[in-house]
């Protein structure tokens, strides 16, 4: 039973929570305003005027398109690699108990638990030692490594809620292992994999610290932005790119949230 006094939040708590949320969101919204500013030399506030000109300018910039294209290709391939490796690992860890199971979880989480600079410099010096030239594929080696954990986490959580008896039932009814995977396992873990894949894509699309170490001359979109941040040349174009990046990353995050939200209603969860 709950008394009235306790079901209402104290005013101070409400204000503190609201201020905290504003602190988290206002800075991002500010970028949207700056994308329309007519000022192109400084970060002047309030903007002297508003214009749509910079969208056209950005649209016609080949370097932005190249960076965007590279980022999308890297993120897509890293996501596929992470999906395969993460699902295999999650299936093995959640299906069976074996020696060293905890160690495997730790190994998967390590690339994201240790600061990115350590992963980055470790990979770079290893590439140097092994005489591997920096290329598109060295970026992917780095990205896929830390994307595995996102897929793994999502898949493990779903496997735990999926009953093993479903698989046994499928086998008893005469399906072989591949049919069972295709018609029983995959539909059950599908949304979790989709969500994990989207988050992995968002993670790779945004990664900059490891990428600065594993990319040679190519610039992914974050590397392009980093260069603009360190040596601003085209502030208005950067503003527009930043706004587009915010919008593009919000979609997969929202989608991933809605996909995993109803995860409790999985077939066989009420065993």
């Amino acid at each position: 039973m709950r008394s009235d006094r306790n079901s209402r939040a104290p005013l101070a708590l409400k204000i503190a929570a609201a201020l905290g949320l504003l602190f988290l969101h206002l800075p991002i919204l500010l970028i949207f305003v700056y994308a329309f500013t007519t000022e192109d030399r400084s970060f002047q506030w309030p903007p002297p005027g508003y214009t749509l000109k910079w969208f056209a300018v950005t649209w016609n910039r080949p370097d932005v398109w190249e960076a965007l294209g590279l980022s999308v290709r890297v993120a897509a391939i890293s996501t596929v690699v992470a999906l395969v490796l993460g699902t295999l690992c999650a299936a093995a860890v959640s299906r069976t108990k074996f020696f060293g199971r905890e160690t495997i979880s730790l190994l998967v989480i390590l690339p994201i638990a240790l600061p990115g600079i350590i992963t980055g410099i470790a990979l770079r010096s290893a590439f140097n030692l092994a005489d591997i030239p920096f290329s598109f594929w060295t970026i992917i080696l780095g990205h896929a490594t830390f994307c595995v954990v996102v897929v793994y986490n999502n898949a493990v959580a779903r496997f735990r809620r999926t009953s093993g008896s479903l698989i046994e039932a499928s086998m008893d009814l005469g399906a072989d292992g591949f049919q069972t995977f295709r018609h029983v396992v995959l539909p059950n873990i599908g949304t979790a994999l989709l969500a994990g894949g989207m988050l992995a894509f968002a993670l790779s699309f945004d990664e900059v610290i490891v990428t600065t170490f594993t990319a040679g001359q190519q610039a992914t979109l974050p590397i392009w932005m980093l260069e603009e941040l360190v040596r601003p040349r085209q502030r208005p174009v950067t503003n527009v790119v930043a706004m587009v990046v915010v919008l593009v990353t919000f979609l997969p995050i929202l989608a991933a949230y809605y996909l995993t939200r109803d995860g409790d209603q999985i077939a066989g969860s009420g065993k």
Partner: protein
Amino acid sequence: MSAGAHAILPGRGGLFGTLSDVLWRNPRLTLFLMLTPPLLWLGIIYLGSLFALLAQSFFSIDEFSGLIRYEWTFKTYAELLRPSNLDIILRTVSMAAAVTLASAVIAFPIAYYAARYARGKWKALFYLGAMLPLWSSYLVKVYAWKLILAKEGILTWIFAKLHLTPVLEAWLALPVIGGNSLSVSYTGTFIVFVYVWLPYMILPTQAALERVPESMLEASSDLGGSPAQTFRHVLLPLALPGIIAGSIFTFSLTLGDYIIPQIIGSSRLFIGQAVYAHQGTAGNIPLAAAFTVVPIVIMGFYLWMAKRQGAFNAL
């Protein structure tokens, strides 16, 4: 599975059928096949490079030729203890501690409101309110603060509108934390660190607070505890594992970051920047490697402490 099952069912025909049968009868083989690709990838690419890096920290650099001397030595670690390098380590660790403390203070009301009072739609809103900033682009967030903290930016404007410009100037005139403008001061670096890592603190704190039964808080106030006493002796100890779990992220991420202090901050180096500088233009991989050992050791110690406090159950 067992020999009995085999006796009842005939084996499947075809390549896939046979393969499927073999895998089903040998769970260990299946496990081995499932684990091999991810373990090979993580083991060779990740652990391999990590150990190669750590090994290099035991080499040293020849001062005259600038080449790496491949002999086992602790010389590079001794170099780490030079005053200028110790300064860098101390600066980074104090920044990480300050950022962690501030994030915990700001995150607590949000997490507490979300865990205890928010229901239905509001709950989802609070969850997304922490998730969206967590996943949105790191560089865009840093960029946003470059806009805000710039001398001609919105913060200076707000201070001017509120007739508080002298306050801002007095703050910037302070030694150590002040500077020419907010975007080149430690204060700026601190604000951006707190902003960028705050969501990592909110989510675990909220998870821990969700598990605090309301009856305990009621019992405390029934027994005469004031709200402050209830908070100090009941709520905080129960929330602590979650806060520590969050602090693992804020602490570790601040220790290793080199982009935020480079873009917003004074010219004095943090560990991450030192690593970057030593491996890049200086080509002193051994010293860079030794520098990376510092956050690894600190985090190892931190994780060990956190584990003793039961923080891992709150993740």
